């Protein structure tokens, strides 16, 4: 297993390099102009100078190399320096990946936005899983019961109605009509006491609910299908023939087998959590990573878009690996060495 993991990790290096190159080339091909959003009164020569200053005059391989060094060498060194409160090498003059729009380091921007995304989107994924697994297990065990039918109906809705619709609907009902929850997420809110904690929970409630419903709809379907596959297996009959309680039969024997594919689906879904929340973050005005990406795209902020997209790619590759490893851990029949 360790061998397998190391081999796979090494293999991710060329994969990620290739991905970063493709992203870089695609963004370069796109008809983008970082000065496009500037006032029209600025003359063409000045615009040209601005482009030069941003390094756009250099050939493409120079720019790509620069980004590589900045992202893979300078940023990690900088991070290390910050953690250890020391200066590693030429820390003053080291070039970092810098946003064209704000002139601040992209990584700092991302670090600023990360907590909101993790709290809202991450929590909604966890809530979604916690709802979905028991529902999936019970609907499969009582297939075609009213509970199962209701679950199928709700998850069909959760699955097919887009989050921007449920989100807006929730805002209209709970913010505008009932005034229970705020419609805009306030990032400046600091949790210091009970009342601010209450406010934080209230402003998280709707986006978390909307995303959790969407996630739970998918995962509960997987869980149900996987349980149904296993409930008819011969080993379940053996477990019953041993005189085990239904609880043990279902929650130990069947669940353990059914979780194998579901866990991998959950792991593979994690990177999508970050990307897929873009819309919900817009709807609820949560200034997380999704929103940052949209701002970057609108402002033709290539370094920001490049870095964010690449980080999503890293997450996808990483969680693919994690899914494979989990599979090997959960299923003794799979041996990677």
């Amino acid at each position, binding site marked *: 297993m360790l061998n397998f993991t190391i081999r796979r990790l090494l293999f991710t290096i060329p994969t990620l390099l290739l991905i970063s190159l493709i992203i870089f080339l695609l963004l370069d091909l796109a008809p983008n102009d970082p000065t496009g959003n500037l006032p029209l009164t600025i003359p063409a020569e000045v615009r040209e100078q601005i482009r030069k200053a941003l390094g756009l005059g250099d050939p493409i391989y120079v720019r790509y190399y620069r980004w590589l060094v900045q992202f893979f060498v300078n940023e990690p060194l900088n991070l290390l320096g910050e953690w250890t409160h020391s200066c590693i090498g030429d820390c003053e003059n080291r070039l970092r990946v810098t946003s064209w729009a704000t002139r601040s380091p992209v990584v700092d921007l991302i670090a600023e936005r990360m907590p909101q995304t993790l709290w809202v989107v991450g929590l909604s994924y966890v809530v979604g899983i916690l709802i979905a697994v028991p529902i999936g297990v019970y609907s499969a065990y009582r297939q075609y019961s009213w509970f199962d039918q209701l679950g199928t109906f709700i998850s069909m809705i959760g699955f097919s109605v887009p989050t921007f619709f449920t989100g807006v609907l929730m805002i209209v009902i709970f913010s505008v009509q009932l005034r229970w929850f705020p419609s805009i997420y306030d990032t400046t809110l600091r949790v210091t006491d009970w009342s601010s904690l209450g406010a934080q929970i209230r402003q998280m409630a709707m986006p978390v609910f909307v995303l959790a419903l969407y996630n739970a709809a998918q995962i509960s379907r997987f869980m149900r299908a996987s349980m149904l596959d296993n409930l008819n297996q011969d080993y379940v009959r053996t477990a019953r*023939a*041993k005189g085990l309680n239904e609880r043990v039969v279902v929650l130990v024997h069947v669940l*353990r*087998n059914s979780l194998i594919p579901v866990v991998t689906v959950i792991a593979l879904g994690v990177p999508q959590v970050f990307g897929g929340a873009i819309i919900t973050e817009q709807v609820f005005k949560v200034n997380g990573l999704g929103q940052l990406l949209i701002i970057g795209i609108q402002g033709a902020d290539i370094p920001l878009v490049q870095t964010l997209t690449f980080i999503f790619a890293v997450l996808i590759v990483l969680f693919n690996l994690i899914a494979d490893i989990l599979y090997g851990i959960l299923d003794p029949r799979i041996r990677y060495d």
Partner: protein
Amino acid sequence: MPDGAISDLVPILDVKGLKTVFSTRSGEVHAVNSVSFDLAPGELLGVVGESGSGKSVTMMSLIGLLPQPPAEIRDGSVIFEGHDILQMSADDLRDIRGREIGFVFQDPMTSLNPVFTIGFQIMEPLRRHMGMNRAAARERAIELLELVGISDPGPRLSDYPHQFSGGMRQRVMIAIALACDPKVLIADEPTTALDVTIQAQILELVRDLRQKLGMGIIWITHDLGVIAGIADRVMVMYGGQVVEQAPVHELFSNPRHPYTRALLETLPSIAGGRSKRLRTIEGQPPALSAQPTSCPFRARCAHAMAVCAQKNPPIERLAHRHDVACFWSPDNADNAGEADA
């Protein structure tokens, strides 16, 4: 064990009029039709019959192992130690399954849970029924694996089913079924997946255990040779019914039902020499879409009469412990016509 001794004992398992019906999309399947039989302590009852004759469904019905729905037990009683299993609460039934009645299933490749170790799966019933702690259960599990002939059992407890061969898995299944010293063992074709040597070893083991533990055994098989070797009594099933039932010598020397006779003729005999060709039973097994109103074997029967189409022959006792369900009798049959049949 001699016949006389067994037949005098009070049966440990007494099945009467068992009827099991499956509801499927294409209608009902009457898989078990009024099956009655009993089993004495220490007796080995062999069950034979072609594929689809309802052997497995009968045995699973009687300890409530069929998922309901689609299965439904319409009628019958299964008396085990004075209590009707079919009327028991689910909890009481669970105390009997695995503890008093052990079950070995037909398919060893899929009957073990792939994600738990063999040790865990053997120890489960021990901890559930015997209240053993981990250490005691482990000790007993090692003992059981030794009993079924798995060498070096200690380390093997932490192996997973896929690390065992088919034959070894079948032995593990037998070990699980025997774990709590049950009074009845139901073995559904436990040796069909095994090669002949292993099969012989398992048969030897069963013979041994029966003597040691005095356990009643129901042994389902297609192999009449095995039946001849180990059974005390034989039950022949056809189309979800018991068509003949007799002590083993009686059945082999004096088969009454045309199906039993045909079945015995399919046996290659060593004594009979080479000239005799292996025989097969012509025709298809009956459709089970309704309760039988005529003899289910009549379409394939050489002795079918008018009455066979009018009603289903009831099972009747002919001689001492020899039951048969047939209107025809070999005694008053035309012997000239029989010679080449």
